[in-house]
């Protein structure tokens, strides 16, 4: 690994996290891309069914969840900047706030699942709901992994000083959370909005 000290103003352009992290992040994006294409192919087969089912989703909850995740990403950016400048208390608080947003996201998602299943729109109802539950379920699993990454970040922000490896790991965790956010924005557009 290339040794580097992290300061707020680094002269050279640098990839955040260790370069290996991006194998995972791009791999994950690639796979979600494949899932999105699969969904679009299935949708092309029964456009009327998919469009009718789409309108039964709670658009308001979807919008709210998008805002919740965007806010959490903002907190993560704040936490990272605070870590770099050594503002440990602020960094820890920002990470905890981001985790709180993640928990709100999960709670809203569970509410949506229960309400959809209660209205007879469970995963078995038709292909739209099957894909809806699988895609959002997979994303929810990523949110849970992301909460684990943020929890790790929270343990690191308390430290006095971070070495190059730890800094790279913290940046990697932050990048993963941004990926979770990014994937949701695509998922939200695809499932709730595109008609």
């Amino acid at each position, binding site marked *: *690994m290339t040794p580097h000290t992290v300061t707020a103003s680094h002269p050279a352009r640098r990839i955040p996290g*260790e370069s*290996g992290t991006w*194998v*995972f992040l791009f*791999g*994950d994006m690639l*796979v979600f891309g494949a899932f999105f294409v699969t969904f679009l192919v299935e949708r092309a087969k029964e456009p009327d069914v998919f469009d009718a089912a789409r309108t039964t989703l709670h658009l308001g909850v979807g919008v709210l969840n998008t805002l919740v995740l965007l806010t959490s990403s903002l907190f993560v950016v704040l936490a990272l900047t605070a870590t770099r400048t050594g503002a440990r208390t602020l960094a820890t608080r920002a990470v905890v706030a981001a985790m709180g947003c993640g928990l709100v996201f999960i709670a809203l998602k569970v509410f949506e699942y229960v309400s959809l299943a209660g209205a007879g729109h469970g995963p078995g109802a038709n292909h739209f709901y099957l894909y809806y539950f*699988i895609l959002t379920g997979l994303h929810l699993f990523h949110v849970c*992994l992301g909460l684990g990454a943020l929890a790790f970040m929270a343990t690191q922000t308390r430290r006095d000083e971070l070495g190059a490896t730890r800094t790279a790991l913290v940046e990697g965790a932050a990048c993963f959370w941004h990926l979770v956010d990014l994937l949701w924005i695509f998922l939200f557009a695809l499932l709730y909005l595109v008609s």
Partner: protein
Amino acid sequence: MELTLQRIGAWAGTVMILLYGTSFSGIAQLFPPLSPVSSADEIAAFFTDHKLWVRFGVSGALLSAALALPFLATIVLRIRRAERRFGMLSMTQLMAATVFVPALIFPQFFLGVAAYRPEQRSAELTQALNDVFWLWFIGIVGTIIVQNVTLAIAAFVDQGDPPTFPRWYGYLNLWVAILSLPGCVVVVFNDGPLAWNGVFAFYIPGLVLVIWLFSTTAVMLKSIRAEQAALAAA
């Protein structure tokens, strides 16, 4: 000598999947997979029409799967080098790797039985044998995930000089582990992307397994060569 044998072992994984894939897809013609929503008569008709091909394909797969053994031994030994002893990672890897070859061999016998006398029994029996094959073949993912996770940890704690595993290989293993996960729910779904012929349960886990085998061969070969060069220089 030991390191040369390890290099042969590293190659064995790639050679295994090529031969196994040829037997399964090329000879037995089971790629793309049969559909879980096909009727019993359709399934029985497939086995009646292709019975000799399926039998030869199964024979080839039964033999080639055993080639994974030296490959798995090499993985365990490389992890031992990374953690500098037979510790938790190498032992957990060893336990999980034990299931790898049986998972490739045992389900094949159900295909063999299905193709053995498909015209002399009712179609439902052939369909049941076919179901057992696919659910078993796709459903065993837990042990592979354990293999990936132990390899990932080994790559992150690697103390070898020259290094045993590059760090990107650790992340690759985490990626493979996550994508293999959907295979475990294959018994839940009769149709759709999580059924045994679906995108999430079959194509993506299958693709990442092949990527994992190829990259594991490449990573281990490179580090064994580096180790040999370091020994020669010393």
